[in-house]
């Protein structure tokens, strides 16, 4: 096990699209374990993507279960993930291991269905909502060379969340 070095923007390597994973060999299993150890090394970090450690393959890890108020599917290993359904939009605050000392508001779908292979290459399907859905979208963006900086919306001038109109 090893903690890997995180690429930091403005390193433009983060802006490239990553390649499909084809080999689910022992070396790949070890990499996934190292990637999660790297995620766990950062306090409060709920997701990480392979390109953040300079490996440009379509692998993202998400685990929002540390905070029980977030509905979750536990520890997700998302290899070659595809979001196949989206629903709803909500603004939320995001930060990124690759962009220290800055957080910003980003619109994300509130519920998604994602299909991905697991670490062994078996196809899985997950339904994600809320914070977990946000984390999955943030990490999959990394695989396409997108940072949350590419999706910022203003911090200002928002009035009430829609749910509050239903009082």
């Amino acid at each position, binding site marked *: 096990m090893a903690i890997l070095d995180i690429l930091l923007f403005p390193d433009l390597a983060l802006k490239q699209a990553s390649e499909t994973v084809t080999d689910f060999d022992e070396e790949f299993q070890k990499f996934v374990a190292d990637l999660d150890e790297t995620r766990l090394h*950062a306090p*409060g*970090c*709920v*997701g*990480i*993507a392979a390109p953040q450690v300079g490996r440009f393959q379509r692998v993202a890890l*998400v685990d929002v279960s540390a905070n029980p108020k977030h509905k979750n599917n536990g520890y997700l290993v998302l290899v070659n993930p595809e979001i196949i359904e989206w629903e709803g939009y909500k603004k*939320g*605050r*995001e*930060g*990124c*291991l690759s962009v*220290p*000392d*800055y*957080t910003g508001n980003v619109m994300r779908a509130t519920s998604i269905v994602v299909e991905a292979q697991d670490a062994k290459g078996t196809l899985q399907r997950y339904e994600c909502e809320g*914070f977990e859905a*946000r*984390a999955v979208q*943030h*990490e999959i963006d990394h695989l396409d060379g997108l940072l949350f900086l590419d999706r910022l919306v203003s*911090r*200002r*001038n*928002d*009035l*009430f*969340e829609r749910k*509050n109109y239903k009082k």
Partner: protein
Amino acid sequence: MLTLVGEDRAGIVAKLTHALYEGGCNLGEASMMRLGGNFTMMLMVGFSGKVKALKEVVNPVSESLGLHLHVDEIKAALHTHLDPDVRISVYGADRPGIVSEVTGALAESGLHILDLESDVGGSVESPIYIMHIEGHAAEGVGSLRAALSLMKDRGIETSLEEIDTLLG
């Protein structure tokens, strides 16, 4: 910290920041906005010289733009952001005292304000006051919600949303 205020017109930011750049300044965090027909700027400026020298850099352009200039030497550093964990929105029929009442109750309940912006909208005859606050709830959001619940009887609508920052 540079503070500049003056009658709004197009081109202020471009002219001022050009002068700062030419004068050897590096800009950091800044807040700039039009308030009631004035343009207001507060800028963190990195500059190796003395305050007097900085004023000499800015004065020609600020005077030509009709901006009041104020310079404070401050102890400051970049990369010291505090993350807000709560966002509070407030609105109501405008009257004196809204900000004082709301922020007073919130301060007593442990709110540390990191960002506040407010505006007056509505019609001239019946203005409405709108305010957004982001801050850190040192004593949790429960006490803030309790403080805000008392505002409705004073004609002030409020909402509180926790900011659950995703780190990924």
